[in-house]
């Protein structure tokens, strides 16, 4: 909580991305949304097709964080005493940080627990185990009075060894970059490598509504003393999808035996982003306003792919897209109380997110007609022994194809988690949420399997209401963001006919109107750039 307060208080010291040392990089987790298509959920227990990317994890709220004290504090340039060879050229340190969430849970009916949300970003209470391990090296260079940071973040997903007995791990590298700051100009920074770029999130939904990029590239940032920050970046990627790459076997040259694999289509997806943020302090208590503007451009060059008929090729047109959005926030500067309003519009390729490949194209075989409108709200209010976290969003996504289909979706959720702290370390939270989704299809949602469908199908509207009871222990003190947290989680989910119709035959979610989730576990974050603990 203390950290949270600092975050919203010390506006000028706030760092989102690439600000020097204190960068407030987003926590883990690759962008879950917008997914290649609308929301991937509901997911069958055994998806026929593996998700396009490893499901990496959630993260806690963008960590408020006072700008870390510059290592320069200990890196005062020594007076010329003795020879240069005798002077240390830098002062550095290693840091270990982590975000983690682990839980032992069941559906109370003998099956493993399962995410019951139907919207793209639902309650995080039933999210599966996930941990990030961050190793970081910080150096201050006396000669330049500049700072260097190297960050490597490994993320591990469920299942863990003690669950399935498999001596194996789902592992992803979430950060691997080096950053330099204050070189040449105070407040200037640049970085290169593989990195998560994120702004503020809605903790309850595990969701970054405005900006959430996973990128391999480089960025340039500047932070002025006027509480103004700006950052631009250019990155690239090649998601593992035939939209980007097609390989074929060809004979080896020069009359050799055997074959070689040749990339027929091999195109890179370029992404550029820019963000400007202004903090407006109000009063002396750390309150203030936050304004942010954000944009992305995406581009994929044209290419050729081989058709099903060997030796016959088809042109693949270039594609592009863009995002524009903004954020308005207000914070009190005490106990992490804040509210953020986000609005975002994405067009074309960008509407699918950086890891996704469009699956329903326009007639010109581009994603040009796809678009997404998003409005979201998140906040936290704390007073004495009571705290309330809030969240919600509305999202309207249309894929690029000409007609309404299952991939076209309007959806939204409202969620609230009030909590009461009985002591400084013991409390009880109640989480309630209601989510609804409409797909671009007509359906007989209430039809029994053995019945002939009616002649009057209606637009599919699915609804899920969820109620959770969460007694918890927070040894670090009171606060919505106080971590670590140990908790029991019970959640009941109520599906209507439309929600059940989203699941395939023989899926228990198709049959169950009420579902349960019960588990005991813990969540933590410390010392991680992903959570602002970057000192």
């Amino acid at each position: 909580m203390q950290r949270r307060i600092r975050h919203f208080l010390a506006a000028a010291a706030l760092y989102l991305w690439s600000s020097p040392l204190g960068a407030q990089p987003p926590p883990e987790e690759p962008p879950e949304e917008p997914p290649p298509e609308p929301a991937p959920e509901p997911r069958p227990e055994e998806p026929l097709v593996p998700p396009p990317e490893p499901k990496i994890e959630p993260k806690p709220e963008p960590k408020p964080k006072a700008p870390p004290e510059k290592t320069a504090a200990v890196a005062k340039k020594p007076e010329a005493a003795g020879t240069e060879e005798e002077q240390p050229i830098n002062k550095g340190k290693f840091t270990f940080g982590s975000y983690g969430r682990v839980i032992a849970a069941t559906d109370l009916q003998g099956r493993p627990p399962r995410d019951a949300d139907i919207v793209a970003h639902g309650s995080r209470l039933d999210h599966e185990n996930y941990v990030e391990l961050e190793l970081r090296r910080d150096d201050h260079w006396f000669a330049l009075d500049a700072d260097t940071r190297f960050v490597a973040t490994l993320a591990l997903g469920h299942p863990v060894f003690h669950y399935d007995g498999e001596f194996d791990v789902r592992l992803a590298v979430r950060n691997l970059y080096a950053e330099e700051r204050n070189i040449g100009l105070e407040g200037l920074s640049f970085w290169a490598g593989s990195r998560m770029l994120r702004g503020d999130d809605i903790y309850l939904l595990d969701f970054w509504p405005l900006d959430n990029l996973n990128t391999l590239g480089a960025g340039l940032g500047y932070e002025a003393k006027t509480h103004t920050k700006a950052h631009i970046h250019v990155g690239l990627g090649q998601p593992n999808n035939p939209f980007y790459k097609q390989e074929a076997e060809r004979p080896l040259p020069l009359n050799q035996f055997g074959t070689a694999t040749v990339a027929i289509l091999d195109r890179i997806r370029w992404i550029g982003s820019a963000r400007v943020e202004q903090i407006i302090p109000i009063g002396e208590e750390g309150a203030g306003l936050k304004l942010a503007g954000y944009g992305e451009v995406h581009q994929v060059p044209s290419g050729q792919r081989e058709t099903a008929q060997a030796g016959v090729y088809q042109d693949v047109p270039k594609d592009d897209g863009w995002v524009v959005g903004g954020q308005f926030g207000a914070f009190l500067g005490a106990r992490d109380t804040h509210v953020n309003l986000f609005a975002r519009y994405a067009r074309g390729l960008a509407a699918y997110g950086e890891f996704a490949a469009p699956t329903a194209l326009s007639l010109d075989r581009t994603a040009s007609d796809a678009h997404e409108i998003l409005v979201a709200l998140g906040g936290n209010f704390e007073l004495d022994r009571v705290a309330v976290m809030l969240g919600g969003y509305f999202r309207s996504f249309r894929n690029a194809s000409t007609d309404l289909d299952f991939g076209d979706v309007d959806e939204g959720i409202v969620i609230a988690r009030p909590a009461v702290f009985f002591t400084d370390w013991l409390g009880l939270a109640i989480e309630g949420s209601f989510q609804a989704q409409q797909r671009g299809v007509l359906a007989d949602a209430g039809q029994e399997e053995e019945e002939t469908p009616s002649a009057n199908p209606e637009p599919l509207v699915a609804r899920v209401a969820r109620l959770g009871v969460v007694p918890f222990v927070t040894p670090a003190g009171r606060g919505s963001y106080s971590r670590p947290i140990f908790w029991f989680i019970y959640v009941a989910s109520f599906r209507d006919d439309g929600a059940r119709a989203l699941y395939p035959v023989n899926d228990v979610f198709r049959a169950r109107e009420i579902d349960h989730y019960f588990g005991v576990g813990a969540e933590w974050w410390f010392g991680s750039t992903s959570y602002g603990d970057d000192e």
Partner: protein
Amino acid sequence: VRRHALFLSLLLLGCMDFDGLDEEIVLETHVADWRDQVIYQVMIDRFADGDLANNYLVDVSAPARWHGGDWAGLEARLDYLANLGVTALWISPVYRNVETDADVDGYHGYWPQDFTAANPHFGDVKGLRRLVRAAHDRDMLILIDVVTNHIGQLFFYDVNLNGHADEQVRGSGEQSEVFHINEHDPDFDPRGIQSETSLGESGPAPIVFKHDPATNHMPPEPPVLQFAEAYNRRGRTLDFEQPDQLLHGDFPGGLKDLDTTQCFVKDAMVESYARWIELTDADGFRIDTIKHVEREFWRYFTQKVRQRLAAKGKERFFMFGESFDGRDELVGAYTHNDLPSTEQLERENMCVQDGRAITGDQLDGMFEFPQYYQVFRDVFQYGLSTDRIQQLWTRRATRYGTTPTELGTGIPPIETLVNFMDNHDVPRFLFPSTLEGTPDFEGHHLALLFLLTEQGIPCIYYGTEQRFDGGNDPANREDMWLTGYAEDAPTFTWIQKLTGVRKAHSALRRGQQTVVWATSRTGDEEDAGIFAFERVSDDDYALVVLNTHRGHASSPVFQGVPMVIAQPEGTVLVDALAGGTYTVGAGGALSITLEPLTGALLVPQ
């Protein structure tokens, strides 16, 4: 609570624009007289790709694979078809099919798996609704192709009782006979397919439905079709001349034959297909494989569909059938209104639950396969004598009957036969001549003149207007988009002219038909190859004269006897196609000479 949930839903959701397609469909009658129509047969998978989102497993390089056409594509090309002058579209079956079987795809639509679900390759229910509505907005009608004879290859006969499908070869060929067992498609057995072991037969072989979602080899829908009793289970038809095999055998390719004498099967078909009309407001059915199904089924199916739709406001619902056979006595049996024996009728009425007894009504019309063989092939392609046209037409009243169906089109079947020169099951008209290196475009146009002026409802197979010339299936199922939908193509403009004249002259649509010249001569005679017929309505007249001879000009005159028509002397007729005028002589005689493979369409000046 429910009210609050709805309110929250409204708050959370936007306004997904279903363009009124989420409203209950109100059935209406969109046709006044089916004789006014010009049908255009569309193989949906090959006509136009209007939505790339449904291009699943598409491979345009292989004729027997999915190619990506869909309802949205057809909708986008309705103006092209309206400009051609067609007024009704016969579209591929709309239900969900087996995806692929033995490396051939179900793109054609004749491998049903789920009679209740839309074929996702073509779109969804609202896409089909929109197509129908867009067609109606252009005064065009939609006919949906339906199959009631069989389902796709959805089960196998477990002959050796081992629980999975086998293909086996037994015997050594030396001291024992070699024979092949294919449990997917075993040879016809009038007793029903028998299971057997090394000790001999052991009773009827159980059928086992497959469960392969990837190829959609899944148990059929609606669920009542998952009963073994829904099928005849006698194996593959080997001899279509054997009635038992014709009616009860599986269609070649392992398409399992439904027992269409079962009441619950009849009801399942009525329920499934009437529902598609209730979902879409389409205007008629083209029905597949008629001769492989008992006539009792057609009586029940057609009557109950008509009654159900009429009760909801859809009248003059048109049902025509396909019997792939050149024998008009057989093909006509499915429109002829005659009652079966009393015993048979009693048995059939046992299926009736609504109190409306079965009558002799069957289909409203038939696909004129006999004419395809005896006229379009023999006369227009092979150059045989034109008197066979007259012979065929003379028999029509007897073969097809003259009694309109109750609640049907209101028109005698002989006037609503669906005429065609080619379709998706036979080589295109231009195929043989193109194969020989000299495409017969003149003969093609002459045949089109005949098709669009004779009595009945003309049906044009897609691509005819772009001179497609493919051979047998699947070569005759070309991709239409390769033509660019050119409206200045010579055959397009020819058909456009013919449909225009047809539309302008009620005689060509509704008039009675009389042959005024036919000949058995095909040599050097002066009338060799001539065929002429009149169409006469209350207030209109048309005379069609054709020279089918390929070698010389001919006239409807022989040994000084001229053609006599039903117009008074002095009447001036104008050729609506070429523009010349002709004056009727004494006694109604008309003199006209036509170059080889040309025709005249004469109407009052």
